[in-house]
């Protein structure tokens, strides 16, 4: 029964996984461009983000069509409404990654002086995104909970970067612009982490029907 509906739900799942993969790719690319100060790499981010935006539009219209045609209830309804919310967060991740890449171009070859810290932060954020997409694919509640907990780590990193940059501005006020650029990059990473948390929360909703409110 409803094999047509099941096929469409499977297709929706596949599209979401692909969008998730694109998010992982785009954030990994931006972070590599940052740590290697590679402008060419950075230029590759924008087209990827465009793909992510397109995916968002596709999946959104797919969801609306399913809501109209199939009048889903219970777990079907949860799956479709979670999908609608997740694509928003994933699309924002793409935008955030593009913003980072833009600043990297702007930095024009200057390598990040907060290298280790920024690299750590980038790595933690990438892991959060990867794990949130994984949690969605495998319907893994424990993994989703881990992502939500890991956000504290990324937030802590952000605080550390902020203090370091404040000290740096204090020491070299002339180089303030560079410091602020780095701060913005760190902020973007932090927000990507928040979006990854949202995705994890929607994963939990689609499985249990309970949406976690902090």
């Amino acid at each position, binding site marked *: *029964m*409803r094999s047509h*509906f099941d096929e469409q739900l499977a297709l929706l799942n596949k599209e979401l996984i692909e969008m998730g993969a694109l998010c992982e790719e785009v954030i990994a690319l931006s972070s590599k461009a940052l740590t290697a100060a590679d402008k060419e790499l950075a230029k590759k981010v924008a087209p990827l983000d465009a793909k992510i935006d397109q995916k968002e539009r596709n999946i959104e219209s797919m969801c609306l069509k399913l809501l109209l045609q199939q*009048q*889903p*209830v*219970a*777990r*079907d*309804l*949860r799956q479709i409404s979670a999908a609608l919310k997740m694509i928003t967060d994933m699309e924002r991740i793409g935008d955030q990654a593009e913003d980072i890449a833009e600043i990297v171009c702007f930095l024009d070859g200057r390598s990040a002086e907060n290298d280790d810290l920024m690299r750590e932060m980038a790595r933690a954020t990438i892991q959060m995104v990867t794990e949130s997409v994984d949690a969605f694919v495998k319907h893994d509640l424990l993994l989703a909970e881990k992502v939500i907990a890991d956000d504290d780590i990324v937030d802590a990193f952000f605080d550390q970067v902020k203090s370091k940059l404040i000290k740096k501005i204090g020491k070299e006020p002339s180089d303030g612009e560079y410091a602020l650029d780095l701060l913005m990059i760190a902020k973007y990473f932090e927000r990507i982490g928040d979006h990854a948390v949202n995705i994890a929360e929607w994963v939990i909703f689609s499985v249990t*029907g309970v949406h976690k409110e902090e």
Partner: protein
Amino acid sequence: MSNIITIDKLCLWYGSQQALKNVSIDIPEKSITALIGPSGCGKSTFLKTLNRMNDLIPGVRITGSVKYGETDIFDVATDVSELRRQIGMVFQKPNPFPMSIYDNVAYGPRTHGTKGKAKLDDIVERSLRDAAIWDEVKDRLKKNALGLSGGQQQRLCIARALAVAPAVLLMDEPTSALDPISTSKIEELALQLKDKYTIVIVTHNMQQAVRISDNTAFFLLGELVEYGATEKLFSQPVDKRTEDYITGRFG
């Protein structure tokens, strides 16, 4: 909200075949309770037990208790006529009598002893208004009821049931034989009526159950599988069988 009908371990057999297995449920008053389930699951049988319409079928055996208020409806001393006055019924296919519209609505009151033209006129008008059909028929009360459209006939049947001032209205798939516009008129009517009456409605249409009911009971093969607030049952059903049925993944 108190419970107006309480059913405890109700079992019913048609001859040797068991149609209801240990059904226990409480129907809260002045609300709409929907009964859903696949064909042959016992929901209509259950409904007809509540006003003892199953008495009309030979070979029916019942155990367990059904309490309307404080009285056990199967008690030998129960006045079945009065029970059916207080628990009215609307059937799947509209069944107005081959009489005038007025006589149709007045049939119930006359059965229970109401006499006097003025009184009956009053009751007829009130019932037709409550059933949201007064304006359409007020100029042809003496015309035969069979001349009305399907949707109008069903609303007439509702008016006829309301004429005896019941406390509970049982509706057995009341809109399954009607077009979408008549269906939505009757759904609107049910929502208005629940302020004054308790409504128990059997429906095959799950969207209808979601739209209008406060509580939903899911029946399967004679058993009550799950019963709860409609919103919860349809968004987070507890039993897998319920989820399989409402998502249409049923065999």
